[in-house]
């Protein structure tokens, strides 16, 4: 603290320069927060997925996707290591507004065992399976359409019309459940039997995918191989993939999110590295006589290092603080102002302690990096020449 007046004086020697440096650092760390936060969010979604849970789908799918016969459920359940199998059948469509798409996930009585971490309590499962046209809405879906338990909602799916040609089905909202990470725009969980009974004969008794639970996550890949081998030479060959493996593949199936986000964050930090390095170098250069006086008074290299690094770190740390706060606010605003894929993308970044610590860590690292050359100059400073102005 005793050197605080010196540092303060150095920072406000040129207020405009200090302010602009701080603003540039703020922008760079806002970008850092958004990009690294997005990366952390993507990794968290992957980590949330478990190796002891898997999806089983058609190995060679058609388009539109038809699915696997539900008759495969029992043979899968009998494979050693499998503790539960549930059928999931997806309907894509809309409620009220054709442009407001949503999804219905129809599940059967095997799903509580195949997907034990689903956001439904045992009582809710029992109610759903006992109510033919019942459905639970996730929080996002309920808020989107202002739905409450007891409401009826009409779901229209042109591609999954009923056997009588009517594309609309009526569901009774049984309650509201927690949001599901991979359905950020909302989802309805409905009764498979109700959907199945309404389908045309050639579309009945099919499931888009089976949710499979294993006893041992370490054996996930081996059990998946055995499931696929079981049906390899059948008319319905399967493709079994552990959910975490699938999540990792999805994250990289588009642009490599990790590479893009970290590259952009790095580009932003590199930009201000040049700025702050230049500012510090110029500041030290213009104050050589001052530093000569300090050396004469007994200030040694560690004191000089402290002064210079703190002067470099101040805008970086302040920029990191404000930048992260701005990044957080921007992501929260995104949901209200934007819609669809863009809102989902921008609302995703997360700011756990690791991201915050990372930002401040990079700020300090930047400060040290920027101070290297000026400190070397101070190390070799000749007091006499400096005071003489040579």
């Amino acid at each position, binding site marked *: 603290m005793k050197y605080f007046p010196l540092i303060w004086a150095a920072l406000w020697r040129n207020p405009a320069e200090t302010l602009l440096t701080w603003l540039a650092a703020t922008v760079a760390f806002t970008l850092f927060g958004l990009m690294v936060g997005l990366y952390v969010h993507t990794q968290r979604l992957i980590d949330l997925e478990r190796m002891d849970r898997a999806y089983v789908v058609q190995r060679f799918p058609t*388009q539109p996707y038809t699915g696997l016969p539900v008759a495969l459920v029992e043979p899968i359940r009998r494979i050693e290591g499998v503790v539960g199998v549930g059928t999931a059948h997806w309907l894509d469509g809309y409620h009220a507004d054709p442009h407001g798409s949503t999804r219905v996930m129809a599940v059967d009585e095997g799903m509580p065992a195949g997907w034990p971490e689903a956001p439904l309590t045992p009582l809710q499962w029992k109610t759903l399976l006992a109510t033919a046209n019942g459905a639970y809405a996730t929080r996002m879906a309920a808020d989107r359409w202002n739905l409450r338990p007891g409401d009826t909602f009409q779901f229209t799916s042109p591609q999954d019309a009923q056997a009588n040609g009517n594309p609309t089905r009526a569901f009774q909202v049984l309650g509201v459940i927690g949001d599901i990470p991979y359905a950020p725009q909302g989802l309805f969980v409905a009764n498979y039997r109700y959907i199945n009974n309404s389908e045309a004969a050639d579309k009945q008794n099919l499931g888009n995918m089976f949710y499979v639970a294993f006893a041992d996550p370490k054996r996930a890949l081996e059990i998946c191989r055995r499931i696929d081998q079981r049906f390899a030479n059948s008319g319905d060959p399967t493709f079994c993939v552990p959910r975490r493996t699938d999540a990792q593949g999805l994250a990289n199936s588009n642009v490599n999110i990790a590479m893009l986000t970290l590259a952009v964050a790095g580009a932003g930090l590199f930009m201000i590295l040049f700025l702050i390095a230049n500012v510090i170098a110029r500041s030290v250069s213009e104050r050589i006589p001052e530093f000569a006086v300090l050396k004469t008074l007994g200030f040694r290299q560690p004191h000089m290092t402290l002064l210079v690094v703190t002067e470099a770190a101040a805008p970086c740390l302040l920029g990191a603080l404000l930048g992260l706060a701005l990044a957080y606010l921007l992501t929260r605003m995104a949901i209200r102002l934007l819609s669809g894929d863009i809102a989902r993308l921008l609302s995703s970044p997360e700011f756990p302690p690791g991201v915050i610590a990372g930002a401040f860590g990079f700020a300090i690292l930047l400060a040290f990096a920027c101070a290297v050359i000026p400190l070397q100059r101070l190390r070799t400073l000749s007091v006499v020449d400096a005071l003489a102005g040579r």
Partner: protein
Amino acid sequence: MAVLRQMAAVAGMNLRNLPQRLGASLVVVVGTAGVVAVLISVLAMAVGFARTVAGAGRADRVIILADGALSESGSTLARDAVTKILTAPGIRHDSTGDPIAEAELLVQFQVSRKGDTKPISVALRGVGKAAFSLHPEIRIVRGRTFRPGVHEIIVGRTAWEQYSGLDVDDHLGFQGGDWTVVGIFENTGASAMNSGAMGDAETLMTAFRRNWFNAVTALLDTPGSLDQLKGALAADLALHVTVQRESTYFAAQSRSLNIVLSFIGYVVGGMMAVGAVFCALNTMYAAVSARAREIATLRAVGFGAAAVVISVLVEALLLALIGALLGSLIAWLLFDGHLTSMAAGGGGTQLAFALSVTPGLVVLGIVWACFIGFIGGLFPAVRAARMSVATALNSMEGR
């Protein structure tokens, strides 16, 4: 003229002593280069994707889907519906009287990228004998085309380059048994096709045990025959189909991903541009401060304020322009023509496309850089022009 001469003289003087301010000048150059490189790189993805999907959709080629389907992968057309569509008026016929139209279906098979083992889905399009008349832009570049009734497929050039096991005479095991790759094709028009494969529609329907098609593609008699075809199909109440030009369909397919990619590009580029403006302001204020006595001397001997303003602006714009060219070069060297793929085909299939750093993107980067340079130079320039001559001449360091 005197004013112009003054501007040229002062600007020239500033530029000549730029090497003395190399470090500070690099700040503007690097900052601008970073902005332009990131902006162009991300937008190159959007441009490359749009080019691949939109291709050179012909005005006289239409695609017919089931009503309500947003894409081929979500459309189902029964055989009787297809028969009615193929006999509708407005469709061109060849010399033998057959319609230049066909029903197509989409299925998938799995391969992995070269050097990787993770399976990814690739689209396999079932086509009829009219395929090459309907798509004259398709040519076989290696091997031969498939024979109907046999488990043979041809593979698009981009898929062949990106994925393993797709060379001529390679064998693939998927629905229905063993399939042989007999040729590599290239579609110079709708290059999205180059990310997938093609085979005989009827053979694929038998193998995949399905009895419906996804879409009908047809050549119109004339580009103006669209309304005639639409009217004929709408008049049949049992048919629930939509007809649209291929160009319209492809534009819609690429729209939403294009919006997301463009949004990312402009937002990220915009944020970096704001940071670069602060960097430029910092640098130019420092440059003006360091030359306060010089500027004051020029003002004292009769140089006008306009000359000072223009000289500072020219310096800032030049540095920004150098940064823009550097950033464009980096983006071009690293990304132009770089093949990538996204799960943007129907049903989650991979769509491979090349990033495209176009002259338009370079011009956009230069415009952005000029904006950064202009804002970064304007305020310091005005400050320089308004500086009191006496104060500046008396100051030790121009502050």
